[in-house]
């Protein structure tokens, strides 16, 4: 089956820091892939390059058949991106925000309505959608943003730290939504997280990244077995030790 995302030796050199060094992995349709690693490991830089926000200094990534270097506009039509700690326009109402964002993905009013209805059913915010976003809690904003990121059924939804800063119940709800959309609608997800225990529950495959290097990729169960570990945190510890990274 054709891959939704193929990352080929993606690198990003900042003035003094090599934030990503020849990162390569791929994602199949309906798969949830998670980049895990500590803060500053290069997760966000990699994700921003795939989202066409940053230009790579080397390598390329192919999203739904389009190169992020040669065809960034086409890539943006195939993805949605939910940044880490993202906010929404505080003066807009929830529904106003969904309308605005839907208007960026389509100019067809019928399709726009479909998107909004779908977002409404996913976020479950109900009447609160008519309130200003400024009055929302962090969990509500996250639900709104997640529903926005999946409302148009993108080929690839890129979610940077989707549950960071949320309480347990909200985090569980977000994780369930992601799992359901992948299972039922065959949507593909690229997630990132520094919370390795949490990511174990949601992702099919993970990539362990540290200091800009993608050290290992594989299914969670397979990695646990390979490194004889109880959980992903232990896998991470052993991988890092093996590679003498820290």
């Amino acid at each position, binding site marked *: 089956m054709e891959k939704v995302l193929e990352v080929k030796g993606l690198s990003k050199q900042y003035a003094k820091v090599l934030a990503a060094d020849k990162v390569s992995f791929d994602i199949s349709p309906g798969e949830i892939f998670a980049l895990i690693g500590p803060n500053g490991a290069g997760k966000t830089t990699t994700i921003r390059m795939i989202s066409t926000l940053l230009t790579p200094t080397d390598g390329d990534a192919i999203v739904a058949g389009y190169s992020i270097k040669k065809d960034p506009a086409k890539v943006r039509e195939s993805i949605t991106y939910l940044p880490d700690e993202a906010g929404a*326009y505080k003066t807009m109402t929830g529904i106003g925000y969904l309308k605005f964002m839907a208007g960026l993905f389509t100019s067809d009013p019928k399709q726009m309505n479909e998107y909004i209805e779908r977002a409404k059913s996913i976020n479950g915010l109900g009447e609160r959608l008519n309130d200003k976003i400024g009055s929302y809690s962090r969990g509500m904003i996250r639900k709104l943003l997640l529903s926005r990121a999946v409302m148009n059924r993108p080929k690839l939804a890129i979610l940077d730290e989707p549950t960071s800063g949320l309480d347990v119940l909200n985090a569980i709800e977000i994780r369930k939504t992601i799992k359901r959309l992948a299972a039922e609608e065959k949507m593909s997800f690229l997630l990132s997280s520094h919370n390795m225990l949490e990511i174990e529950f949601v992702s099919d495959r993970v990539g362990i990244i540290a200091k800009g290097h993608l050290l290992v990729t594989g299914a969670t169960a397979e990695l646990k077995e390979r490194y004889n570990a109880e959980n992903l945190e232990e896998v991470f510890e052993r991988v890092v030790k093996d590679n003498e990274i*820290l």
Partner: protein
Amino acid sequence: MKFFNLLQKELKELINAQMIMGFVLVMVLFFVLSSVMTDTISEAVKQEYNITISDQDDTEFTRNMLSELEKDGNHIRRIDTEGDDYAAFLKDNDLKGLVIIPKGFTESIESSDKPEIISIISMKSASMMSNLNTENSGTIEVLRKYISDSYSENLGISDDDIEFMEKPVTITEKTVVNDRWADVSASSVTGRIMLQSAILPIIIFILIIMTSQMLVNAIATEKIDKTLETLLSAPVSRTAIIGAKMLAAAIVAMLQAVVYTVGFSTLMAKSMFSVSGDMMSNMETMSDEVTNAMSEATGSLMSVSEGMTRLGLSLSIADYLLVGVQLFLTILICLSVSIMLGALVNDSKSSQTIMLPLMMAAMIPYFISLFADVNSMPMALRVLIYAIPFTHTFTAMPNLMFGHNGVFWFGIIYQLLFFLVCMFFALKLFNSDKILTVSLNFGQKSKLRKNQKQYTDE
């Protein structure tokens, strides 16, 4: 369609309750200012002939003189004073001003010495309007007339002789601008131009600051709230995003310009009108001389506009259009510079600080245009001041008026080039990684380096 969606969002963000409150506040401020001005002036004008006099001499001559004063319809309040504790005189009688006819006044007149009249005015502040107390000077003018009349009667000199002696030459003032001349005084032309163009620099200044602040905030807020990344990853071009932001700021700026101009000029006109109205109604109670002087003054004021047309100082519609074009270029420069400044902001504190360079670039030419003529400055200073692109906006009107067309056109071309260069770099910045990575942290470590350090520490 997508662009319209973006534009609509930007406009909705800019035109909010805060901005409307700002509008209302400015209008209220204009209104209060104009009515305060009107009140102070009309009060000053009305009080003119409410006179308090202390007649220490108290002779037949002084009594006749005062009753003559009363004949003109003036209300005279007499008080008794003694000695020279002037502050106490005003305080005890709750007065703003007092005229004292001292002892020996009549004697001096009879012996043809110069008699003395003491005028006391209480000063409470240095503001121009509050010291507009013409009470005493008006009274003294009438007394002086009475005394000189009585002298001339004694000496047998006619009024005409006196007038001739007072004004032995007729001074005809002519003003020359470039190669034209007119029968107006240079000071009255200056006064008229000041009055006419008092509004424009303020509007320009407000426009520069407001427009820039709007766009800087629009970009900075997106960065701070982390909505910019979402927007940039959507299937719209970055140029469309920045274009919508610029257009929205420009539309709102124009809206503000119209509101301020209309508000400012109608209220200015209103206060000017009511002042002259008060003066007119007071004229009836004034003596003939004052009325004559007044109408003379108004007469010459009216001929100023005629004179200005003859001097080529009046601006044609084409000139106003040119000033409009320059104002538009100014806004474009503000917008392009603001994109770059907004991109540098990463927190709400620095979004205020970042405005400083633009503030200075607007403030310097604003004040210089109020107090000095850039064209007559030494070459080096002139080049330096004209290097600030906004200077050309402030000097556009006077330059067109006085025929410095070369300087004006240079200004337009300079501003156009300045805008194109700024816009080029702004778009380059916005279309590169820098829009997300660049920041002015004012001595702080960048987030990336902080994270890197934290990571190394772990």
